[in-house]
């Protein structure tokens, strides 16, 4: 299990975070993360990326798409209900911000979300293009478009909060 533990301790945080923002639901993100490592370690998925992180993230994305097809549901998850009153003010604020972001992300097309999340996880535009099977230019457009929309959303949120 040494290989598993090394792989898990190095990448579990990244895969879970990616899955969480992609699907918007903590329980689904746990399932996707666990299954990603099972797929890798049982050799069920062929090599599809130049880096192991890209490989894992691509598997996680494919699992998410599989789960969507299985359940025939579109993602429009409400943010998880968390009793923020029980948390310290700063933590509660961060948590609320994260929940709002997670929820807001679900409004955009899956491939746009994936492109931005993969870029945020440090993948190159070439790797994103490969993972999504799109052109390099499309990968850049998807990332830039969503990044701008999120920045505009944040700016609007800040303005309304003031």
């Amino acid at each position, binding site marked *: *299990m040494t*290989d*598993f533990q*090394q792989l*898990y301790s190095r990448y*579990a*945080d990244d895969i*879970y*975070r990616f899955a*969480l*923002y992609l699907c918007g639901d903590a329980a689904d*993100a*746990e399932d996707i*993360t*666990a*299954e990603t*490592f*099972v797929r*890798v*370690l*049982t*050799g069920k*998925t*062929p*090599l599809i990326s130049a*880096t*192991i992180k890209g*490989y894992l993230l691509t598997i996680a994305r494919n699992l998410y798409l599989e789960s969507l097809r299985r359940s025939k549901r579109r993602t429009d998850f409400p943010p998880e209900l968390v009793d923020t009153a029980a948390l310290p003010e700063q*933590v509660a604020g*961060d*948590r609320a*911000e*994260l*929940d709002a*972001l997670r929820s807001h992300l679900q409004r955009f097309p899956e491939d746009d979300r994936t492109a*931005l*999340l993969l*870029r*945020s*996880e*440090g993948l190159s535009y070439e790797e994103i293009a490969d993972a999504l099977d799109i052109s390099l230019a499309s990968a850049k457009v998807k*990332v*830039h*478009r969503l*990044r*701008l929309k*999120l*920045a*505009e959303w*944040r*700016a609007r*949120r*800040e*303005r309304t909060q003031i």
Partner: protein
Amino acid sequence: METVHRNIILDLLPSYIGGEASAETRALVEAHAQHDPEIARIIRAGAPDITGSSSATQPPDALERKTILRLRRSIRRKMAYVAIATVSILMIPLVAMQFTGEVNWSPADFIVMGMLLIGTGLAYVLISQVSDSRTYHAAVGVAVVTGLLLIWINLAVGIIGSEDNPANALYIGVILIGLVGVGIARLRPRGMARTLFAMAVFQLLVPVIAMIIWRPSLADPPGIAGVFMLNALFAALFAVAGLLFRHSAGDSRD
């Protein structure tokens, strides 16, 4: 300074926000933001920190255990496939025995063959867990199937003369080299490649050693040329597995 159209700034803004813009682009966007409050607000807000680590975006501690349990379940499922495949293969001689006298397996034959098949299947399942490389899986497949054939042929008819010929005991050495090598290599592809090459070399040496010690017995069918050709075939298969392991070492991504 020449005025830049707002749409151009909006085109540049994602690169700026993402920290991917050149110094010139940054200067251009910042100069524009000084007299465009909306752009300035977007820049101040920036893109959300998606990679930011917080307790809300970290997997729960129990997830590691959950993943291990899933992994074990997956391995158990594969073992069940091995058992089903073994029973299915053993059904062939069992059914044949009902229709022809040509096939006549004793219970011991079934037990030995069953153990060989299960051992081969489990060896493949367990060793192939080590890597997700298809080349590594192919190498494991070639190696275990060749090992299985070597043992089976020796038990059934023997490579050198009949199965009772003591020279055939030399092939235990090939399998022992494999087992010891796998232990030393700890399943790492380069070490596995060296192990398979050593097995191939010893396989080629077996008829030579047999000729020195038991020369007369090599005259029995399949004859000296036949024995050397069979050994060369097995050695070639072990060498192919070794080459595949060596190739998979280049695929490993750790």
